[in-house]
């Protein structure tokens, strides 16, 4: 379970990205965070992933308050959270295979076990035949899928994606969103941000709407099937 209580995030330049946000996300939920550009979607996801710390309030993930975690404990927690970034954050000095294998190397998997998992993850995102390629040789959609493969290879309990379809055309975007839905269907808690309301209608997730850093409670009811 993820719990945010009275979260305010104020950056050093004085900008308040989030104001008094409180919410709970149960295990296995599929949550889409929507809102206009600058509404605080990315900040909210960063706070849950422990990339940022709140200026006020508390974030609890899996029963652990992130503010109290040591760097070591935070690193261990992050191994249980798959992160998909809008800018992918791929390593272009490493092959596709090595990019996906990195979280497993960090977790201490043997090369043999890691190779099995990497190929399974690449197969899941349709990149098995590109394992030796350099990420720079991949299209934008393929790079996004590679980022997803890296996020899921450790079989995390939580998957967080910030604008995963932001730079993709409609067809690629639907493929990517279908993947997230399929991960959710096997029990993974999925939180993703988007400003595209089409996905809310298509997948009927729990929808959280942010308006100028505050949760718009009127817009946060689960969307009923039409």
């Amino acid at each position: 379970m993820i719990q945010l209580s009275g979260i305010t995030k104020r950056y050093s330049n004085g900008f308040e990205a989030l104001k008094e946000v409180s919410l709970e996300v149960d295990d296995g939920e599929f949550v889409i965070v929507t809102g206009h550009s600058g509404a605080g979607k990315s900040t909210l996801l960063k706070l849950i992933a422990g990339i940022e710390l709140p200026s006020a309030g508390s974030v609890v993930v899996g029963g652990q308050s992130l503010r109290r975690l040591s760097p070591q404990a935070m690193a261990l927690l992050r191994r249980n959270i798959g992160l998909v970034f809008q800018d992918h954050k791929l390593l272009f000095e490493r092959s596709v295979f090595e990019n996906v294998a990195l979280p497993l190397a960090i977790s201490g998997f043997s090369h043999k076990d890691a190779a099995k998992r990497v190929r399974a993850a690449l197969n899941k995102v349709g990149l098995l035949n590109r394992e030796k390629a350099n990420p720079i040789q991949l299209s934008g959609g393929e790079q996004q899928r590679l980022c997803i493969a890296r996020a899921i290879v450790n079989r995390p309990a939580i998957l967080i994606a910030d604008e995963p379809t932001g730079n993709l055309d409609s067809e690629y975007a639907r493929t990517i969103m279908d993947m997230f839905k399929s991960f959710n269907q096997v029990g993974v808690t999925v939180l993703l941000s988007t400003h595209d309301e089409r996905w809310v209608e298509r997948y009927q997730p729990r929808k959280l709407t942010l308006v100028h850093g505050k949760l718009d409670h009127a817009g946060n009811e689960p969307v009923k099937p039409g």
Partner: protein
Amino acid sequence: MSTWWRHQGQALASALRRVARTPLATLLSILVIGVTLALPAALYLILTNLTGLASRLNVEPQISLFLSLDASDTEVQALQAQLQANPAIARVQFVPRDEALAEMKRVSGLADIVQTLDKNPLPHAFVVRAKLGSPEILEQLRGQFATLPKVDSVTVESAWARRLASFNAAGEKLVGLLSVILGIALLIVIGNTIRLQVLTQREEIEVGRLIGATDAFIRRPYLYFGALQGLVGGLLALGLGLAGIVWLTGSLSEIIALYAPDFRPQPWQLEAALLVTGGATLLGWLGAYASVSLYLAQIKPR
């Protein structure tokens, strides 16, 4: 295999890949380490050899008493009896002036000049070996002998050996001081090399942190890289030091043949070689640790 060992293997492999990716920069760094360490290492080796050389020379405490030219045989015999009765003296050897002149002709190569002398300019002498050779006792005996009748001058012939020992002791301190100063310089050099590596790998470090890498995991390949550089640099310093002593021995071969013909230059002793390579490896490790830790504190995931 345990996770810990697997992580060590991964870090070592990563460090070796880093060497392969940047061979020129690594080579330059190793050369800097090797040449910097070669100076104290070579000095240490020279001092070790000087000590060995000194031990082969006659360093038994020996005092020479040169008598006045007018000393009679009776006075010489009285003096000999007086010296032999001294409890601080182990052995007394009389060197008659004629014998000294003959020896001078034989050894010095001045036979022709000596032939031209109308009388023997050398005095009778006593060569005395003290039971104890501490500088204080020898100095005390010297003062005592100088007051004896018909004694013209007294020389303590181990003085030069003591000077050599003092020189060695000062040299050892110099080596220690140089090692500390150059060690600090090496820490900075290695730290800076690693800092540049960290900066070029900033992206990788950030991503690693985002996906659960601990600081220890991130730091480890750099530590191995620094230690590898130090190890190879240390081996290079050993080689340079050895080359230095061989060259120096060659240059001083005539002097060595004259004073210590059975002297052979000593290569590195195992302990000293381990100290140099181990020290260099440790410096590499420490330099990398300090550098990476400093920059990890600054690099935060966006």
